[in-house]
């Protein structure tokens, strides 16, 4: 049986004035896989995420999720449909507690509404309690349960990264977009994170699209990847073929030259 495509982009293009940030991006992502989107800084990776998650309306092209066209759907509806994301620069609800952050994620699946809270209805009390419990459970999976009452902005960097993923999972997604989850981590932490990403894929039955700037990081975890450079898809395929692709090497060499200078 052929595996099912969960997300597909067709000719996805984003232009900012004269700049084409993403040009004709085509991808088919199979259910249950972990795939990567890599490329040097400014290649257009985050812009791709923003188009898929509804933050940008693409200048051209389509996004299909489970066969339905979600192009130009606002972010909150994309999330409701089952696509969750994290941000390259961590975006937590800084003044809320760690627990509250995850509970906010649960809200999209909450059935009772605010006036039921005011009326002190049992159905609402019960659901709020269930949400708090579910959130604690998620924190446990991420090793954050002892920090539940802390302010999110007071957490160390690594814990903030994990909290952001926990919060995304609280929305009960089928498809998870992670924007440079390993940024700012040392090699050992990065390795642990990649193992962890594999674990949550199993546990939560996810399909994961991962952005990474450093190619080496995702070689071990991704089954398939796309390489962007100046908005263009310069290569696509399994890690081994990407590693050997002269175009990719050139793009990254160029970047190293800039970094070394």
């Amino acid at each position: 049986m052929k595996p099912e495509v969960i997300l597909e982009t067709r000719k996805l293009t984003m232009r900012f004035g004269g700049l084409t940030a993403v040009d004709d991006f085509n991808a088919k992502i199979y259910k249950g896989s972990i795939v990567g989107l890599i490329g040097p800084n400014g290649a257009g990776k985050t812009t791709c995420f923003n188009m898929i998650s509804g933050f940008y309306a693409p200048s051209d092209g389509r996004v299909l999720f489970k066969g339905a066209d979600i192009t130009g759907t606002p972010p909150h509806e994309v999330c409701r449909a089952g696509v969750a994301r994290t941000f390259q620069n961590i975006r937590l609800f800084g003044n809320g507690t760690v627990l509250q952050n995850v509970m906010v994620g649960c809200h999209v699946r909450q059935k009772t509404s605010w006036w039921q809270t005011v009326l002190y209805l049992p159905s609402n009390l019960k659901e709020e309690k269930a949400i708090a419990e579910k959130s604690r459970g998620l924190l446990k999976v991420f090793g954050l349960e002892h920090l539940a009452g802390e302010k999110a902005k007071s957490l160390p960097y690594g814990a903030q990264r994990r909290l952001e993923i926990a919060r995304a999972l609280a929305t009960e997604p089928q498809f998870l977009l992670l924007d440079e989850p390993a940024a700012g981590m040392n090699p050992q932490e990065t390795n642990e994170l990649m193992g962890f990403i594999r674990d949550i894929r199993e546990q939560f039955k996810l399909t994961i699209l991962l952005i990474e700037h450093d190619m080496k990081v995702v070689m071990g975890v991704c089954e398939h990847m796309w390489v962007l450079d100046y908005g263009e898809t310069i290569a696509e395929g399994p890690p081994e073929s990407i590693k050997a692709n002269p175009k990719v090497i050139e793009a990254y060499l160029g970047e190293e030259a800039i970094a070394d200078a």
Partner: protein
Amino acid sequence: MMERKLKIISNIMATAVLAMFLWWAQTNLGAYHTQILNLIAVNIILALSLNLIYGFTGMFSLGHAGFMAIGAYTCSILIMTPAQKEMLFILQKAYPWVQEAGAPFVVAVVAGGLIAALVGLVVGAPLLRLGDDYLGIATLGFAEIIRVLANNIPRITNGALGFKGIPGYANIWWNFGWCLFALYFIVRIVNSNFGNTLMAIRDDEPAAKAMGINIFRYKLLSFTIGSFFAGIGGALLASLVSTIDPKMFLFTLTFNVLMIVVCGGLGSLTGSVLASIAITILLEWLRFVENPIFIGDFELKGIPGMRMVVFSLALLFIILFRREGLMGMREFRWEWLLGLFRKRGEVK
């Protein structure tokens, strides 16, 4: 975590203590001190509602005076007798429906809140799409439009003359009853997961969107609920002071509430309550700076409006040196009080 039952009992007991205090106040305090108590209750309602909008949802709104005016005029028209209105509208006759309108006090207050909420919903829909700084200016403009309208639809509002002799139904029981209702309502909201989502919108809009929150809808909801209680506060105030006119609803009225909310702490309901009490009392007490002061034979003339200057300076100091206000974002909790007792117990 403390058991919910114990919390409910604690809250009921606190309410009973307040009721006993009010009962005592009613028989033992003079008119002047009773009036201060009443003002405290109304200010708490106003501060809680602005804190919901600004402190918890992060919408910098300066429209409170406008919603208060709507509540005040609606309530006044409904509780004044037709005979009273006949006497008041001397320059131009009131519209028949204004002339005939009448309702019991509680209905009139609710109507004031509901119409304010409706207006909040209608003006909020376009305004809340604006960015923060623009929202402040736009809501300020809205409040000013309401004031100008009040001046220019004399057949409803009696124009610049306003209303006199509004029945003083707003006694200590009504005011504190409404105050407790507002407190209950807003505490329930803020402590629920809906409250968490408002806080999320305040802290990071893009992240809130990514969490599946329809931020426009939730902002509008928070703004409408805030407008409702601003209208309630305005309605009670009208009956409390018995005279209203458009000049009463100048920006200074919004400024007073804003000052209370900022001093108490944006995002702390406890702070709003405490600051309402403290600032209402201080504002009364500070009236002495507006009276002539004698130093020996030398007379310092009192300057009208001086206490507002003193208060503005105080606000400036708070913003400079303690931006998070009295309470920061902390709240009073029963556990916390109980914890104090427990610690004492351990020492012994």
